[in-house]
């Protein structure tokens, strides 16, 4: 294909132009191939437009396809020239060969040039009623393409009506494509703010779809199932009927068909009254979900993210199936991480032993990130299952015994959570933890250990010595460690005032004078004032009883969960976020969005605007997360998942306009992001917490300090959740 001669002075394009005009057919075809090759590697060959166009009229299908390909690529930049091609296109739609007719109509739809669109309508009209199903199915999709470019034309020409009629076509693929096209048009018109129902699924259509379902190709089934998911049933019997007809699809080899079927069942199951049937459906759903795990890793990952959602909705779906989620040695990291999460969800008293021995194995693997998450999972199991807590603690102690630095550090962090859930139960392990003090170099681990020391100051004989180490290096530590040290020392002082007077003086001095973090300084001032004004009040504040933490059963709010269940297998369900947060502007563009809310009232519009800001912020964050780790790690998917973990439940509320207080929701969106991944630290509305964030003003603090916090600063309250205690 490549030429051996050196290119002439006038460049490769000159040579190509000559060849395109050659009298020999083979030479011309070869030249077109080279043009396409150049186009593929992003060389500019748009100058050859007229020369390429000359080769359009040919009997050679391959050559025709190549020319079409070229046209699709350059139609947008050279619309005037494309007009020249229209004639051939229109002629081709009359060709006796159905492949040629379909090819012409398919390509015309892909030419994104306004000028050519007007010429598309007549041939399209004809092709929609073509006697050949292949042409019809291609034309059906062409309507969706046209709608994407110029919706008016579709409506003016009555293509929508034609499509609606085509649902009853005798050919399954035509039905499937028609359904896909109608759904596509429906969605973009809804997104554009239209209230008109473009694609109404009537009773009659429903029965047609159910019949076509079994005859369709795998991809067609997905399209039909998606349409079935949108159908609003008229009666419970109808819902049951749909469920019964869809269940056989669970046995399909294509994972997307299985997931689409799961979606339909999950949606229509809401209306199924018979408890028996519901049970049966849930039972039938389990094996196919498990089988999804024998797919390639990417598909597995999609399945796992969805199983995670389904479990939040129906925790009973996969009881007894925990073992299948055990990680295989060679699973990619992003699959392992999802499996871990699901394992913890499925953990119960009966299987926790198996889980723990499995997690212990993981903790000895090579990948640091995975090891950390495994240890975290042990902590989550301990918090979730009271009966197993002791066994979990024993496993953690064993792990600390390995003295591998990151294992020990993570175990310490996890132990802190266990102490919060079961106060004063496992004091026996404190000496072991303290013995590892020198091993810790990460702020979170350090802060956790300091918190434990402060909390149990009266049980640890040398607490003052241990804390003294941190007080001496106070300035070099990171802020979280400083905050924690400060609090721990104050706790120590309140419990053992005699031995630690000097220490508390030293730390307050350092914190107020030499520290450059306003948070640390402010907190030191508060303590100082509290201690000097009323030590009794200080005691009630600092040593107050803390509400126990628990493992949240869901990671998203119930409203969002419902929405995501209806989106099973889509990107939204994979990210665990509503589509608006990552799509932003679909095919319509962001500027049209505010228009849609104009009539609903100012209040809602403001909400929308606020949400958009959040969305924009999140997108920026997403991009960052996406770009950065890609360089050292070739698994963009796993990374995206981690980024997606910081889910924002409130966003859905906000969007749906259901929230009573928009401010609260916004705050919790931001709060969540900053909280990072401390799942055990359940948000608490303890009034005392907010003192950490309260700036110390000129007004003297009243001794009865335990009054509710000013509402203006709830966000910081969350930030400092563990801080003050």
């Amino acid at each position, binding site marked *: 294909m490549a030429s051996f001669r050196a290119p002439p002075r006038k460049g490769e394009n000159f040579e190509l132009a000559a060849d395109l005009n050659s009298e020999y057919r083979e030479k011309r075809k070869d030249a077109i191939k080279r043009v396409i090759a150049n186009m593929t590697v992003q060389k500019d060959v748009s100058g050859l437009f007229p020369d390429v166009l000359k080769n359009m009229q040919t009997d050679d299908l391959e050559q025709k396809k190549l020319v079409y390909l070229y046209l699709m690529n350059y139609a947008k930049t050279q619309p005037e020239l494309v007009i020249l091609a229209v004639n051939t296109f229109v002629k081709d739609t009359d060709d006796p060969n*159905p492949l040629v007719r379909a090819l012409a109509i398919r390509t015309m739809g892909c030419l994104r040039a306004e000028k050519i669109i007007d010429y598309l309508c007549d041939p399209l009209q004809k092709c929609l009623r073509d006697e050949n*199903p*292949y042409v019809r199915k291609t034309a059906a999709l062409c309507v969706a393409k046209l709608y994407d470019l110029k919706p008016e034309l579709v409506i003016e020409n009555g293509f929508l009506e034609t499509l609606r009629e085509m649902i009853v076509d005798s050919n399954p693929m035509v039905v499937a494509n028609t359904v896909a096209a109608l759904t596509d048009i429906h969605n973009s018109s809804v997104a554009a703010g239209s209230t008109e129902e473009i694609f109404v699924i009537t009773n009659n259509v429903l029965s047609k779809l159910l019949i076509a379902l079994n005859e369709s190709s795998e991809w067609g089934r997905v399209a039909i199932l998606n349409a079935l998911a949108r159908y609003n049933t008229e009666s419970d019997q109808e819902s049951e009927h749909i469920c019964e007809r869809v269940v056989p699809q669970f046995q399909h080899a294509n994972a997307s068909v299985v997931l689409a079927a799961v979606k339909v069942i999950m949606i229509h199951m809401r209306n199924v009254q018979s408890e028996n049937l519901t049970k049966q459906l849930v039972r039938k759903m389990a094996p196919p979900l498990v089988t999804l795990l024998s797919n390639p890793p*990417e*598909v597995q990952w999609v399945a796992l993210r969805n199983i995670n959602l389904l479990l939040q909705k129906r925790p009973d779906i996969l009881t007894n199936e925990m073992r299948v989620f055990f990680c295989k040695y060679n699973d990619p990291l992003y699959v392992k991480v999802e499996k871990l999460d699901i394992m913890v969800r499925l953990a119960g008293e009966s299987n926790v032993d198996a889980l723990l021995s*499995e997690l212990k194995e993981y903790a000895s693997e090579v990948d640091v990130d995975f090891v950390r998450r495994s240890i975290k999972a042990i902590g989550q199991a301990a918090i979730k299952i009271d009966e197993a807590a002791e066994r979990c603690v024993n496993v953690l102690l064993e792990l600390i015994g390995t003295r591998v630095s990151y294992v020990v550090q993570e175990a310490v962090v996890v132990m802190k959570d266990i102490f919060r859930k079961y106060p004063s139960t496992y004091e026996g392990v404190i000496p072991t933890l303290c013995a590892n003090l020198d091993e810790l170099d990460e702020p979170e681990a350090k802060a956790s250990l300091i918190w434990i020391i402060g909390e149990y100051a009266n049980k640890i004989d040398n607490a003052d010595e241990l804390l003294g180490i941190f007080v001496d290096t106070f300035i070099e530590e990171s802020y979280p460690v400083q905050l924690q040290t400060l609090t721990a020392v104050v706790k120590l002082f309140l419990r053992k005032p005699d031995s630690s007077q000097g220490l508390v003086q030293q730390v307050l001095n350092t914190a107020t004078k030499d520290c450059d973090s306003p948070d640390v300084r402010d907190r030191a001032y508060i303590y100082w004032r509290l201690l000097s004004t009323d030590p009794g009040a200080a005691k009630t504040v600092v040593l107050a009883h803390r509400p126990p933490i628990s493992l949240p059963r869901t990671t998203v709010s119930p409203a969002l969960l419902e929405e995501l269940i209806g989106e099973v297998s889509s990107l939204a369900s994979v990210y665990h976020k509503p589509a608006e947060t990552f799509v932003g502007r679909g095919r319509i563009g962001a500027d049209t969005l505010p228009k849609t809310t104009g009539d609903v009232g100012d209040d809602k519009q403001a909400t929308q605007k606020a949400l958009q800001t959040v969305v924009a912020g999140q997108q920026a964050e997403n991009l960052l997360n996406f770009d950065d780790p890609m360089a050292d790690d070739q698994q963009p998917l796993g990374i995206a998942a981690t980024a997606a973990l910081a889910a924002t439940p409130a966003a859905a509320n906000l969007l749906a306009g259901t929230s009573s207080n928009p401010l609260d929701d916004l705050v919790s969106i931001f709060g969540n992001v900053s909280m990072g991944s401390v799942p055990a630290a359940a948000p608490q509305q303890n009034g005392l917490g907010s003192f950490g964030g309260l700036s110390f003003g000129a007004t003297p603090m009243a001794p009865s300090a335990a009054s509710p916090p000013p509402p203006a600063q709830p966000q910081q309250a969350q930030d400092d959740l563990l801080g003050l205690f």
Partner: protein
Amino acid sequence: MNNLYIVAVTKCNANAALVFEYCYRFISIAKSYFGKVDEEAVKNNFVLIYELIDEIIDFGYPQNSEIDTLKTYITTESIMSTATAIEESSKITTQATGATSWRRADVKYKKNEAFVDVVETVNLSKGATGHTIRAEVDGHILMRAYLSGTPECKFGLNDKLVIDKNDHGGMGDAVELDDCRFHQCVRLDEFDSSRTISFIPPDGEFELMRYRSTRNVKLPLRVIPTVNEMGTTQVSYIVNVKADFNNKLSATNVVIRIPTPLNTTSVDCKVPSGKAKYVPAENMVVWKIPRIQGGAELTFSGLAQLTSTTTRQVWARPPIDVDFQVLMFTSSGLIVRFLKVFEKSNYNSIKWVRYLTKASGTYQIKF
């Protein structure tokens, strides 16, 4: 794969499962067209790739992705749109969109044959105390159909086959499948109502069925390791392997990988059969046995010498991994009882069935 990335982009809330399934389908189509998928193949076939993509996806909606059908009208030679081609094209297009898009109507063979391969992969994870953490069979039934016309096939498995284990509890020796999935040619509604597997097969090779079984899994090789760390300088190994199946059969290509500590300097191995060698790069002893007769028992004994190290990290003891193949044996006990072919012309067809149980990288024993 092969340093190529298959990338799909979207600007809407796309169906993620469909996208990934499609990408994998694209790879398999590409493989069947050019043999392998790598940079070289892409460069040499870019015109064909454009053509294929154009055909299998339109406006983001996957269309016909059946390799057999695609090959009828997307070929490596160029097609002329002549009068004869027109008739041909209408046939193709009707088939490509029809209810049996996977099969051409005019298939003819002198000898009508069908080959069925039952291939089972055993996933085993055995704990250090000898208990089974997980034993699962991942089964595939592959079929190569060389049958004329439009044959209607019926497929029968074991008489005592329980597919939904909750339907009938505890049938003793019955073969239980946790779940099964079928090629799109199988009529799912019929399977759902009467448990019969009936279909019109595509021409040539395809995967008819995939299944999973976790009950009554027969493990063909029993591996019992005894590993002792003697002080900090030596590790002793005794690994006993027993072939737990009929002595007329045999396991072939057996590879047993026994991990050694990272600071191993040498391993002294003694084996009754096959070859065992310490591979320092992978920190393991690889013991290869070309063939083990059913019922046979082999024992590996070895002693690893360690250098003294300063790191305090204990040895993680990764699992022993076993690869093998056993012909004419199924771990799940699944048997093909019959394959009936009905066709208008009523020809006789010859059917062949083969069984294979294997493991590669999934048969793990912890110690």
